[in-house]
């Protein structure tokens, strides 16, 4: 698998991928990831907004035939997580037995390795969600 072209492609998303920072428009709509125009009302007056990282599993799957570059991790669970602030985020689930995953399961964000590129390549980190620790 080819190496990523530029490290910059990944570090420009550090805020989103490490701290779950999205956007909030002047009318109070929050969304993830950050973008210049509010997807709800079209306002261009948008500021950064950090999500709590708490949410619930909306739907999930187990990826058994991954895209190249992810073979090493298979099978892995992938889910749409609805954050407590409303927006939905796609991410892998981690630290969980696939048998235990269910819709509505309470999860929280953690930072994990998402992928690595060969011996001399970069390592990508980002958000994943795990069942809430009690």
């Amino acid at each position, binding site marked *: 698998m080819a190496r990523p072209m530029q490290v910059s492609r990944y570090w420009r998303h550090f805020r989103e991928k490490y701290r779950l920072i999205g956007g909030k428009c002047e009318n109070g709509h929050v969304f993830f990831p950050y973008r210049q125009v509010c997807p709800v009302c079209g306002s261009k007056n948008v500021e950064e907004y950090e999500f709590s990282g708490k949410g619930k599993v909306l*739907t999930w799957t187990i990826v*058994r035939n991954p*895209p190249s570059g992810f073979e090493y991790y298979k099978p892995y669970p992938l889910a749409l997580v609805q954050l407590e602030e409303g927006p939905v985020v796609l991410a892998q689930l981690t630290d969980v037995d696939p048998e235990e995953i269910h819709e509505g399961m309470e999860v929280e964000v953690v930072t994990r390795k998402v992928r690595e590129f060969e011996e001399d390549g970069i390592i990508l980190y980002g958000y994943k969600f795990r069942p809430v620790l009690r």
Partner: protein
Amino acid sequence: MRKAVIIGAGMTPVGEHWKLSLRDLAVEALLKAMEDAGVDKVDSLYVGNMVSGPFVEQENLGALIADWAGLGNIPAVKIEAACASGGAAVQEGVKAVLSGLEDVVAVVGVEKMTDAWPSDATRYLAYAADAEWELFHGASFVALNALIMRHYMKTYGYTEEDLALFAVNAHANGAKNPYAMFKRPIKVETVLKSPYIADPLKLFDASPVCDGAAAVIITTPEKAEELGVPKEKWVEVAGMARAIDTINLANREDLLTLKAAKIAAEKAYKMAGVEPKDIDFFEVHDAFTVMAALSLEALGVAKKGEGAKLAREGQIAIDADYPIQTMGGLKARGHPVGATGVYQTVEAVLQLRGEAPNQVPDAEVGLTQNIGGTGSNITVSIFRRV
């Protein structure tokens, strides 16, 4: 306003074409369509293709295919709208004719997918998703559809068996299509016993990785007459539209509504002056079984949440009220992604000419719906017998 008619159609069988390249397939389909129309030159060429760059290291398909098909120094471009590239290319061709800028237009859809390793193919197909926010996390295209499938089943109380009925119907129809990749009927058990690719989505819920090309020739009725094309061959493009939705599945307003299809369908129905009940057959985009169900709902054939019920009630077979996938659909005919929308068009043309191997009796109006992404870019076209 000018009218557009399709006067020629051609295709290659869909399959694993080890001996043929992308250009071989495209040229073959194109020449067949031109021969069918009885034309030896066209004013322009539109090529529907999704990912030729990664798959075969070839872009600039307009020049490549026009050159190799001997079409001369005409304008020729590639049209890309993910898996809806073919449907979009047909619509761009029709627009060129309707605008009056071009009189005879060729459209070819082509995709060569089997030259890549399977996991690379999985990656390239995921380029239709959001690279930074979906593919980054290891989402395959199948996985994204599996998320929708589970949510659909959970929300409306359907089982894997219910959705399998769409695959069974597609294979039953594909069995009669000599151009289909899978010419074998299957049972519900075949689907249920197939391995999970992304739970609850199984191998037989999904369309195959394959190669193929299909082509049509579009012109005006006046020009068709001038060219001496017999009227039995004409098929009118009665209505067409397309729309987009969020590229990222997570950003959808409603995971279970193909909003882009709904908007496009409403416009296309209006343009053609028809309602869903007037349509004699539907070639919907069943890349995954759940997509067939959601498509029927978006097209107004079934109420929201009742798409899969139509399959359960036997309403989607050739001799039922709403025949779908009359030549096998993406599931059995095969889904060479950027070519699929053109295959659907060719199949609609054959149905409306009464030349289909699996003929819908007295078909007068047909609809094709081509989905790009997980519902992010959708085309709807309505065709009518002249």
